[in-house]
């Protein structure tokens, strides 16, 4: 009898934990969307902020985040994919490559604010790029590199060796093998990693704090050397630094809603590619 009671307690413990985790997610999404939904509209996304940002839209922040994510991707994807190809296809396993892999894994664990400091010291000051969307994008690119390298290498590892042997035996060079067979086959896996990285970059705040983000710009930027607005930073400012915090709360909710929608959209695309790819095999 006591034993049975104990099992029931255990069951409650396990199931209860899972329910709590689900409830947390439910509360987060429920709260933001119930309070933000009424303020989210097409005009909100495509309008400029007005009246000291107590009214109007968030176009500069949306545009800033998109440009920032683009720069991050353009910088990190070619380098990251090339690095992964080198490690997985060309480099012979040795102490040296093991050290590189361990460093890459540890780079991924460094707090993002430290990347921010590093970006400030390297891009903004030493390379004299100033506080700009370029500096911020490069900083986020550095932060994304380990992630891109890891996911690309995993995608390459899933390609069976028999595929490489098939083309090599036909007299293809190693480069032709990679270009014509390995990369096309690994593309969905690489793409999934790239999109998830974009979603992470779009949501990051700490690394862009000192590298180029601005509180208020009443236009869409035209040059990569300008400062920019970004959705996550906009949300941070609206919720902590604005002089009329209570008044702008609905705008903050709506901004949070747009940011989460953007990130989820990217994640769903990545899940979809992964799902389609797995079922095809």
């Amino acid at each position, binding site marked *: 009898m006591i034993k049975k009671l104990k099992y029931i307690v255990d069951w409650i413990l396990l199931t209860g934990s899972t329910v709590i985790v689900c409830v947390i997610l439910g509360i987060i999404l429920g709260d933001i969307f119930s309070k933000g939904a009424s303020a989210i509209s097409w005009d909100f996304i495509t309008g400029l902020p007005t009246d000291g940002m107590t009214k109007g839209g968030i176009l500069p922040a949306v545009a800033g985040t998109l440009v920032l994510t683009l720069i991050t991707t353009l910088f990190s994807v070619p380098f990251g994919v090339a690095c992964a190809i080198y490690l997985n296809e060309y480099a*012979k*396993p040795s102490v040296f490559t093991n050290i590189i892999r361990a460093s890459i894994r540890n780079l991924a664990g460094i707090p993002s604010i430290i990347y921010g400091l590093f970006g400030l010291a390297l891009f903004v000051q030493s390379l004299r790029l100033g506080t700009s969307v370029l500096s911020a994008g490069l900083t986020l690119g550095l932060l994304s590199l380990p992630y891109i390298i890891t996911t690309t290498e995993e995608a390459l590892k899933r390609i*069976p060796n*028999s*595929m490489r*042997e*098939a*083309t*090599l*035996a*036909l*007299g*293809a*060079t*190693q480069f*032709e093998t990679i270009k*014509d*067979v390995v990369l*096309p*086959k690994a593309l969905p896996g690489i793409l999934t990693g790239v999109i998830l990285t974009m979603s992470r970059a779009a949501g990051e705040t700490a690394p862009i704090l000192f590298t180029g983000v601005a509180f208020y710009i009443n236009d869409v930027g035209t040059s990569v050397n300008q400062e920019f607005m970004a959705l996550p930073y906009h949300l941070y400012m609206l919720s902590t630094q604005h002089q009329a915090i209570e008044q702008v709360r609905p705008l903050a909710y709506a901004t949070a809603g747009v940011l989460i929608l953007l990130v989820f959209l990217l994640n769903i695309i990545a899940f979809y590619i992964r799902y389609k790819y797995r079922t095809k095999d």
Partner: protein
Amino acid sequence: MDKIKLSAHRLNLHFGKKHVLKNIHIDFPNNKVTSLIGPSGCGKSTLLRSFNRMHDLSPDVKIEGDIQLDGNNIYDKKVSVTAMRKRIGMVFQKPNPLPKSIYENLSYALKLHAFPKNEIPGLIEMALKESYLWDEVKDELKKPAVKLSGGQQQRLCIARTVVLRPEVILMDEPCSALDPISSHKIEELIMSLKSNYTIVIVTHNMQQAQRISDKVAFMYLGELVEFDSSENIFKDPQKELTRNYVNGHFG
């Protein structure tokens, strides 16, 4: 005396600290089928793969001695590996079609070696006919190759090899992943190909070796034990070890 197409002299191969091939001497006659037989781990696949330098990318493999194609060492520094592999094609144990259409699997091989564009369709049709696959696929050349059955895939891989008009075809247990009917088709195919190509085949299947080969090499623990005509190996082997193996006493 047959003309020698491919040969190995004093061939030694180390995999890390393991001595896998021990001082192999062997000559393969032109336009004949030679089978390599022996128990698992005797080094027959390793030997086969050294004939088109498939070990090049394995960092732990060390090869000494030489392998000659028409009297020229293929491990010579001046030899172009890609051109050599065009002359010595290979078919693997598991069918490995590329993730492309049937047609592209063949045209890809031709494009690698810059065959003239207008000759490509004709060469492809010829290779598919030679591989007994044409009648089954001629209406669906655009179909992804992976949608074919296992036996069809393997014949496609053979077609992909013969489309380049090689001189030697290496086959690494080409039937071991196939059902008996598909195996039988591949065997017929091998018999018909030998008038044009020198074929070296690794097999586990004693009956198969007997049916298709002109010559048979028996290997054991990295050494070439006996090399003779198929008839002699199976009917009247000179070595005790060979006799035990072909009579099924071990392995």
